[in-house]
């Protein structure tokens, strides 16, 4: 029999940490700080709306680009949080999570040979999505001494005459890094000068702990060259509802909607009705969750400080990204031993890019009581390693 598989797909690097996760899923009694999704339940009023829409028998498809009411609320939301006006009729498309928006966004703009710049450490799907879309990914290795922000010289160095897209993943998973206005302005200047398109993944935009998040699309001349991606998973604790969206120039959104229409038809109807309610009435609940994450963030930062574990202060998402280079182990070795010896699961930094060797992603989407136990165990482990060296 022939080999039926696609070379492009089989050629995708398998996640280097699959092995690690196999061990995690076997160890049922381990405390996990590895999960990248909120520990909160979706606020009740949103779930209630989902239930209500089922009761009403709203089990049909919606229009391909999403419920009109939802696109209008998304447009309102972006207007009131970022001051950017998107026309809900042709500049917004509702997707199955932010991840679908990344996929169709890249597919809508990539021609063979185009280069996509991906700063790492970052979310795992940019690189494979770029490859599947036919692009050549160009990785920028972000530096800890820059707090994992993207610097203008790093960007300039990565740009060639084939560069088309810059992926801007802030607030960042896994580092928790943010980009402030002055950082974005420098990047925007280069983007305009070099005539690039930005795919700005702002799925964690509601979860920042210093200043309010600023979208690069809000800067002068950037709206027309930015695909803004966001969604409901992180801010509203709605991961399982699978709902995200993209806003951008109408010619790009039109092509994205075309792919979305052929591959997906439309995002889940029930989730869309619930999301309308989330955007209308959710601000207070989001703020409560944000405050709670912030407490945990401070708690972890203080614990690492006391442990003398090197960690820059992250101001976004719900991750801290401590450095473990002092122990002369790979991230995976450290994480595997921590799991086996102290039964705490964290994610090796290398899951998010080779340059994240020597770092761990620790999620604080867990209650403080949970974090306390985990920190105690991490401390034991770190003490043990230091005493043996």
């Amino acid at each position, binding site marked *: 029999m022939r080999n039926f598989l696609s070379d492009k797909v089989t050629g995708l690097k398998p*996640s280097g*940490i*699959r092995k690690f*996760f196999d061990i*995690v*899923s076997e160890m049922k009694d381990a405390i*996990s700080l*590895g*999960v*990248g*999704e909120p*520990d909160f339940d979706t606020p009740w009023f949103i779930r209630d709306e989902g239930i209500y829409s089922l009761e009403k028998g709203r089990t049909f498809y919606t229009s391909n680009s999403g419920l009109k009411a939802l696109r209008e609320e998304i447009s309102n939301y972006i207007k009131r949080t970022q001051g950017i006006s998107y026309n809900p009729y042709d500049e917004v498309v509702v997707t199955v999570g932010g991840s679908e928006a990344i996929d169709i966004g890249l597919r809508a703009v990539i021609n063979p040979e185009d280069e996509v710049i991906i700063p790492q450490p970052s*979310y*795992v799907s940019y690189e494979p999505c770029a490859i599947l879309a036919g692009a050549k990914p160009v990785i920028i290795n972000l530096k800890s001494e820059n707090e994992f922000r993207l610097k203008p010289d790093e960007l300039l160095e990565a740009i060639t005459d084939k560069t088309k897209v810059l992926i801007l993943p802030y607030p960042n*998973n*896994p580092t928790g890094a943010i980009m402030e206005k002055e950082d974005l302005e420098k990047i925007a200047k280069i983007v305009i000068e070099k005539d690039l398109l930005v795919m700005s993944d702002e799925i964690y935009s509601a979860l920042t702990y210093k200043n309010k998040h600023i979208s690069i699309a809000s800067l002068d001349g950037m709206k027309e060259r930015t695909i803004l991606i966001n969604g409901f998973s992180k801010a509203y604790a709605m991961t399982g509802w699978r709902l995200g969206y993209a806003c951008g120039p109408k010619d790009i959104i039109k092509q994205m909607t075309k792919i979305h229409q052929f591959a997906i038809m439309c995002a889940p109807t029930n989730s869309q009705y619930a999301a309308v309610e989330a955007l209308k009435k959710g601000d207070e609940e989001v703020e409560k969750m944000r*405050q709670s994450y*912030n*407490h*945990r963030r*401070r*708690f972890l930062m*203080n614990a690492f400080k006391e442990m003398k574990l090197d960690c820059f202060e992250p101001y976004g998402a719900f991750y801290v990204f401590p450095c473990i280079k002092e122990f002369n182990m790979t991230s995976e070795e450290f994480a595997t031993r921590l799991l086996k010896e102290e039964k705490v699961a964290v*994610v090796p930094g290398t*899951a*998010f890019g080779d340059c994240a060797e020597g770092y761990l*992603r620790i999620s604080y989407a867990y209650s*403080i009581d949970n974090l306390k136990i985990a920190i105690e165990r991490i401390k034991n482990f770190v003490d043990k390693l230091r005493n043996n060296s």
Partner: protein
Amino acid sequence: MNDKMRDELLSILEKNSRIDFKELSVVLGATEEEVLEEISKLEKENIICAYHTLINWEKTDIEKVTALIEVKVTPQRGQGFDHIAERIYNYPEVKSVYLISGGYDLLVTLEEKSLKEIAAFVSDKLSTLDSVLSTATHFILKKYKDHGSLINETSKDEREVIIP
């Protein structure tokens, strides 16, 4: 301490009054001294009135019966409802007294060892007060949620392992 942080402090303490000063200062991003000072100020101003524990008495062998009593009263000249409320809340078995808008005036929570004792309190003490016009007693059969906490359910983490 600014108002925003004070509000945050209060909402943390409302959920967990046993949190220690060190942890409280860490999560708020303040110093321990600031937290201590603020709490003693809040106690002095009677903004923090007391620290309670939510107990599920049903799981103990101590018998407790709780009733909610709606009370209609005639307000008194110059004192409104305050005087009659005081006459009622002075009984130690009365757990709470609220002035309520709507069909009646005061909502009284009463905790006793038995149904009989509640009946006795209502007929002997409450109904006989001069300004009490009528009462309606409701017994609590089961508590599902109290002070924002679920009584019987403990939540467990059902998130699945997903490769990030």
